[in-house]
């Protein structure tokens, strides 16, 4: 299989779906002439033209709201928001319209819409470094996908574009350059199915997006000392696929959730609660969580580096859990 970057995997998914279905169009800030803030749509404007690659003003509520109307009207828009932080400007559209229209009108209308949005950070300080996926995962009526690998990103994005339901597709700015195996040719992956990225017997680590790579790195280190972690990639945050997590916890009796978001009311809290309720008797130690330090992101590099779990701290936590 070919090694491709996460960026190219997303690009391929978009391009293939645009070639497959002329109802697919892309709209957002700098998606056209500029080629995408993260260069995901570079060349698309020339290939598909301004009718299908729509540069919008900097007005997120209009980007999402317009995409909702276009989706109701029979198109399959992919709306790009430049960063997940800017989705806050469109929150009314996402929560009150995107997620509600199908239910509120008793199935009379559909919103086959994908909102692509990268999380991420890098000395961008408080307003440009947030994760926020739990905000969306909280809302019935949305599907929330947050892939970690190029293979998953491509297969899940193609599935998201074909879905008749609205999908928040959360990418990660620091994953765009990450390489992984992506087969040439057509494939999709099912939304709502988690994936075992590394089998193991001692501790279950549940993660997603960039933190999955941190967890895998820690697992690699720990394996050298004989501790075998089973690393599960959620891939989809709503609906949550707990089956693999439960099966794993039955085997390892220990669960650690590693997320990039703040932990309060986050994905880890939800997963811990479910494990605690449904697999209480399987647990040998309390479910543990690791996430972002609960302060607004500072600008200074040394402070920023203190914000997230890393391979070392995750490995340390696992050692404590098996001790």
């Amino acid at each position: 299989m070919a090694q491709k970057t996460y960026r190219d995997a997303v690009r391929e998914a978009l391009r293939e779906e645009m070639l497959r279905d002329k109802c697919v169009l892309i709209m957002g800030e700098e998606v056209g002439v500029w080629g995408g803030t993260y260069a995901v749509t570079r060349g698309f404007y020339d290939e598909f033209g301004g009718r299908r690659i729509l540069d919008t003003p900097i007005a997120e509520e209009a980007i999402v709201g317009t995409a909702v109307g276009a989706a109701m009207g029979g198109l399959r828009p992919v709306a790009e928001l430049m960063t997940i932080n800017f989705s806050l400007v469109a929150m009314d559209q996402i929560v009150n319209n995107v997620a509600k229209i199908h239910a509120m009108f008793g199935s009379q209308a559909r919103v086959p819409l994908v909102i692509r949005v990268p999380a991420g950070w890098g000395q961008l300080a408080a307003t440009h470094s947030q994760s926020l996926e739990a905000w969306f995962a909280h809302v019935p009526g949305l599907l929330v996908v947050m892939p970690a690998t190029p293979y998953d990103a491509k297969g899940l994005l193609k599935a998201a574009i074909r879905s008749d339901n609205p999908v928040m597709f959360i990418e990660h700015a620091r994953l765009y350059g990450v390489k992984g195996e992506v087969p040439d040719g057509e494939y999709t992956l099912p939304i709502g199915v988690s994936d075992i990225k590394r089998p193991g017997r001692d501790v279950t680590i549940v993660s997603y997006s960039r933190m999955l790579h941190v967890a895998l790195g820690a697992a690699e280190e720990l394996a050298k000392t004989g501790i075998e972690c089973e690393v599960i990639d959620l891939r989809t945050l709503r609906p949550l696929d707990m089956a693999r997590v439960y099966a794993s916890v039955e085997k390892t009796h220990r669960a650690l959730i590693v997320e990039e978001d703040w932990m309060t009311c986050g994905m880890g809290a939800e997963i811990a609660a479910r494990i605690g309720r449904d697999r209480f008797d399987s647990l040998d130690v309390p479910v543990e969580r690791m996430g972002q330090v609960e302060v607004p992101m500072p600008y200074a590099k040394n402070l920023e580096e203190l914000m997230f779990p890393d391979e070392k701290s995750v490995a340390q936590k696992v050692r404590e859990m098996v001790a």
Partner: protein
Amino acid sequence: MASTSPSRVSVEEAAGIDVTAEEALDWFRKMRLIRRFEERAEEAYGQGKIGGFLHLYIGEEAVAVGAMAALHPKDDVVTHYRDHGYVLARGTEPRRVMAELYGKATGISKGKGGSMHMADVRRHLWGGYAIVGGHIPLATGLALANQYRNLPQVVACFFGEGATNTGSFYSGLNLAAVWKLPLIAIVENNRYGMGTAFERVSAVDDVYRKASAFGIPGERIDGNDVLAVRDAVRRMADRSRSGGGPQLIEAMTYRFRGHSMGDPQRYRTKEEVEEAKTHDPIVRWKRAVIENDLATEDELMKIGDEVEAEVEDAVRFAETSPAPDPNELFIDVLVPE
């Protein structure tokens, strides 16, 4: 570009008005239907049979009826939450609208939307939206879909004057103008956003002048004159349909009832309301119809009786319809895949 519209005589100067007897009676019937429907809904609300918020359209009937008369049946419509009048004017069965208010399984949205979220997609009514201004970008998107798919439909987006102070009004119409989309914004100016007089909270209180921010035509019309509404919407829809981009109409009207049920109306005087009622759109249209020999008093009376029976039937239907099955709770949240 923005201008007022002195181009047509009002219903009071009605000689030779451009309307058939059939149309004249149809509009009278629809305005009467909306009026009577709302009065009965008000009663049912008082009896505790309708829950939540109930925003009545009484006094504003000429806007919905005039606009729907101008639009083609396949033209798309997106509205704000004072929305019963639009669905009734488009022809949705009063039974199903009343049943929706009652929260019954036979309602147009199976009792899941209620008063503020009336949709009848088969009739290209894409919903009532209850976050002020939030549906304006949606209308832009529907118009984008029509343009992209080379469909001849225009989108009519209705909202109150209060919505023109939201960001969505600006961002939605800006984008529609940039892309020259087939969209007509019909602003129903009833002078109050809940209980706040528009001029107290809007730096520019002539809504039609706000069209100049987008370089699109804006016209103020008498929204209590059903013919003036029909003519203006028709003119603007034609222009928009033939590539003229979005257009804005400010229809001046007045709501005779409070903002919602239980509004003590401390923000306006009884005299003001009584004065406004002298411009009652139904009374005015009735007078014009008779003066122009389009119908007789008896014929109009008969229509009134038929409407009365139709609304009573709607109430009976709503009252005797079943509540949604509990299993409905989990249906419609996502499209089954």
